[in-house]
């Protein structure tokens, strides 16, 4: 029948035969009139997209024409995200796995968290961490000359994200630092996909918060010389540690993997302990093993850096100039350098969309207050980018204490709100408190811009002065301006002309 009669005629007569059943978008009076006559009507309480941000509203309206194309690209992006199979496989010196970090004599590269930034605009903690790293690498004898060298222009600064790496807080990464290697073994994913993150140094006075004295640098040396190689051997002996199932269990045990990593750190320790023991046998035995296990056991955030490398490995197959997907509106990175917040999209290649970073809202350790706080910082928002952290708040009511009321129902509300700006639920990572619903995954720049809901990020708060360390924890919000810019660039990539 369809072949003989044009489809048009069929549908039109359908409307003209049956009583209208109306979705009313806009003026409520129309719906009221119809309902009064007994006509089936559902009313949409319409609000302008991107309320108060008219430019984005227009861009969104324009993008409506390309809905089918964008939906297709996003489906592919989501497929790659959800097909990921991240495995922690090794620990290596950063310069060995990222050859770009190794330069001819007299030239040096320092990787930092967040979007690109030069020395002058770096916040205090980041400058402190840079100076510490320079001394650690032996490029300068002391912090004062390290600071001079950093300001001299002879140091190249690049974002971690540029070379497949991520780093928490200041995120400073240099060639000798031991980085953990996560390989994405997902099906249909670029086989060559590896991501890196420095080993978590523990809490308190650490380089990632800008501390840089001998104690701090000494710990990094130990990580480089003893703990890193041991962890690497253990991982190789274990044949790698599959992370996706570990995250599933961690969610059920009350972690959201950004602010709280108690369960995942313990699960990692449990899985690797036997391999640690065998690996230590080949080194110098019991002393090393005891120190290493005590180090993991003493750091509830040990897993964070593993999770971050995992996040980077999950997102890279749809990011950047090579793997980015045309017309895909998914957010592939959110990160901060303490000065700017940066966002990248799958469909816009290597471009960063930056705006001044906001202050986190949260609780302070005794003796500290908002006055001491540095603005939001770190690549760790990769956790939220993959649907964990604040997006998985519902699984970690314990974290709610940092963001105010602290009720379990508030935690659920957080996750539900983030569900409004994402495209899918990750079926592998489910939340018991939401009746097994998956974490919200795949932030769509259009949904952020339209709703004005800013992605929430669970974060630690650094002291604004270098060297002091963490002074609190709370929730930061990604600035909407990043998403408005990203939206515009995305539309331009599809032919939008302003």
């Amino acid at each position, binding site marked *: 029948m369809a072949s003989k009669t044009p489809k048009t005629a069929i549908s039109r*007569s359908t409307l003209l035969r049956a009583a209208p059943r109306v*979705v009313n978008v*806009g003026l409520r009076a129309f719906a009221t009139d119809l309902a009064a006559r007994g006509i089936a009507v559902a009313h949409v309480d319409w609000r302008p997209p991107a309320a108060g941000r008219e430019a984005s509203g227009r861009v969104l309206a324009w993008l409506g024409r390309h809905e089918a194309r964008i939906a297709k690209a996003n489906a592919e992006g989501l497929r790659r995200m959800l097909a990921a199979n991240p495995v922690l496989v090794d620990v290596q010196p950063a310069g060995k796995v990222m050859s770009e970090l190794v330069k001819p004599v007299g030239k040096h590269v320092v990787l930092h968290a967040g979007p690109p930034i030069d020395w002058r605009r770096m916040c205090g903690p980041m400058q402190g961490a840079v100076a510490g790293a320079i001394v650690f690498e032996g490029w300068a004898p002391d912090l004062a000359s390290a600071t001079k060298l950093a300001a001299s222009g002879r140091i190249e600064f690049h974002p971690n994200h540029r070379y497949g790496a991520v780093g928490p807080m200041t995120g400073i990464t240099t060639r000798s630092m031991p980085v953990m290697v996560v390989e994405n073994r997902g099906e249909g994913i670029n086989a060559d996909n590896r991501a890196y993150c420095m080993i978590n140094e523990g809490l308190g006075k650490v380089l990632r918060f800008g501390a840089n004295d001998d104690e701090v640098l000494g710990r990094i040396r130990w990580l480089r010389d003893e703990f890193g190689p041991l962890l690497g051997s253990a991982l190789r002996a274990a044949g790698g540690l599959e992370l996706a199932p570990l995250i599933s269990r961690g969610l059920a045990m009350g972690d959201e993997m950004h602010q709280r990593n108690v369960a995942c750190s313990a699960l990692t320790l449990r899985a690797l302990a036997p391999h640690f023991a065998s690996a230590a046998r080949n080194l110098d035995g019991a002393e090393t093993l005891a120190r290493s296990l005590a180090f993991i056991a003493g750091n509830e955030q040990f897993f964070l850096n593993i999770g971050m490398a995992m996040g980077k490995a999950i997102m890279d197959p749809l990011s950047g100039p090579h793997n980015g997907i045309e017309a895909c509106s998914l957010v592939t990175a959110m990160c901060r350098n303490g000065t700017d917040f940066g966002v990248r999209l799958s469909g816009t290649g290597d471009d960063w969309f930056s705006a001044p970073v906001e202050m986190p809202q949260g609780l302070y350790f005794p003796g500290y207050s908002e006055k001491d706080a540095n603005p939001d910082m770190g690549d760790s928002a990769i956790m939220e980018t993959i649907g964990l952290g604040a997006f998985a708040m519902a699984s970690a009511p314990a974290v709610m204490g940092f963001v105010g009321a602290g009720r379990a129902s508030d935690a659920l509300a957080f996750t539900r709100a983030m569900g409004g700006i994402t495209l899918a639920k990750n079926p592998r990572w489910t939340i018991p408190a939401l009746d097994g619903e998956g974490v919200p995954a795949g932030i769509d720049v259009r949904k952020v811009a339209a709703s004005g809901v800013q992605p929430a990020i669970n974060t630690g708060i650094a002291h604004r002065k270098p060297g002091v360390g963490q002074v609190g924890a709370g929730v930061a919000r990604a600035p909407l301006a990043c998403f408005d810019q990203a939206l515009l660039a995305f539309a331009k990539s599809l032919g939008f002309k302003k």
Partner: protein
Amino acid sequence: MIAAKNRVRRGFYADSVALMRIARELESAPGVMRASLMIGTPSNKALLKESGLLTKDGASARPDDLIIAVKGSNAEEGLVLAEQLLTSGTAKTESRDSHATFASALGALTGANLALISVPGEFAAAEARRALEHGLHAMVFSDNVPLAEEVALKDFAAQRGLLMMGPDCGTALIAGVPIAFANAVPRGDIGIVSASGTGLQEVSCLIARDGRGISHGIGVGGRDLSKEVGGRMTLAALDALEADAATQRIIVISKPPAPSVTAKIVARAKRCRKPVTLCLLGAKAGPMIVRTLEAAAGLTGVGSFSKASPVVLKSKNKHNSIRGLFCGGTLCAEAQIVLMEHGLKLSSNAPVPGARGLASHVKGAPHLLLDLGDDEYTRGRPHPMIEPALRNEHLERALRDKSVGVILLDMVIGYGAHADPAGLLVGALKKKNNKVVIASVTGTEGDPQVYSLQVKKLRAAGVIVAASNADAARIAASAMRPGKPSPAPRPRRSRPRSRSR
């Protein structure tokens, strides 16, 4: 002391029509001269400033804030009242049957087949596209949708076999159901395709009051027969009505289309298996083409259903002229056509071919017909069909104007229209005056306002109520017979239409 006061509500959004209704209510409060509620966009702020309503407070509003502006001797109380009205208004919109998103509404309504869209123009195309993508027919009330978008949407709809009614489509009758601004008319065998909302209302109401009925009334939007849109939806609607078993004859209503489009429509109408009448207001009459809504309704017997008594001009002024104050643009056009057929020279802000623009009013053409729904009158205010009180200002001016002898009015009732436009008009006519007021009511007995009740109210106030808008114009013309300013012996029936041709 008369002062303007502003209050700003942060992060508040409400539809502009809802806000305008509140403003109207405020203006009826004692001590309030002028009130306006607007979202704080730069253009809205400029509008408020122009009308002397903006203060420093309001100027500080951001585009996602609401500005409440009140001017009068009691502005402060006006602000308080506005807050109350806003609160009760928002409470209503939060009722259980409303949805935050299209998707959720669609999920809740099984078998949804039509989306009625009335959002600001720049967003309407995106909403319409979404509806079409989900397989729903779309009716877009919003105007200010870019032409290119309209063409793209109509093509997209055609590919999917869906109707794209509008943009700028306020009236439809689907399977007998009045949608948006429409009237309760019985079902019958006449199908209507209309580029004009009030045109569709007048024709369907005339047919209904004549005891016949409508199968479907499909609105196509005011620009469908323009050169750019090329009559896309008119042609598609003709296809649909030709295929529809309930439809036996078809009426197409439009302003004169672009010549290339006229040819296309005429050719299509000739091919149609059912009889087609093309009502092209102001075009030359011809085979299958008529010039007025009344003729389109098949009521060509001139004056045959006017029950009005002979017109007696009340003023001795020799400059007795007609002042037409119209809420419906198409009704204004039809009145112009009828008056010109009677040899009268007139000007209008929306002149039909042959009429003059406002500039030549008085000198060349004493009779003045205003379309008060035109943009120049509705900027920042509701359309006079929703809020006919806007017309009262013009009415009061006309009543004071010594050169005016006859005031000609339309009145559109039905769904979406004001609850009691006759009551509102009668209020303005209370003061003694020496004018002849002639009106017609577009509506039916089934309408919420009830046709006969509205007519009764008008007649009680001394208004001559004609049987149709065209008839009202004819009665007005009859009063203008040169050399016979008073007692006109009902010349309409005998007056040959050919005289003006």
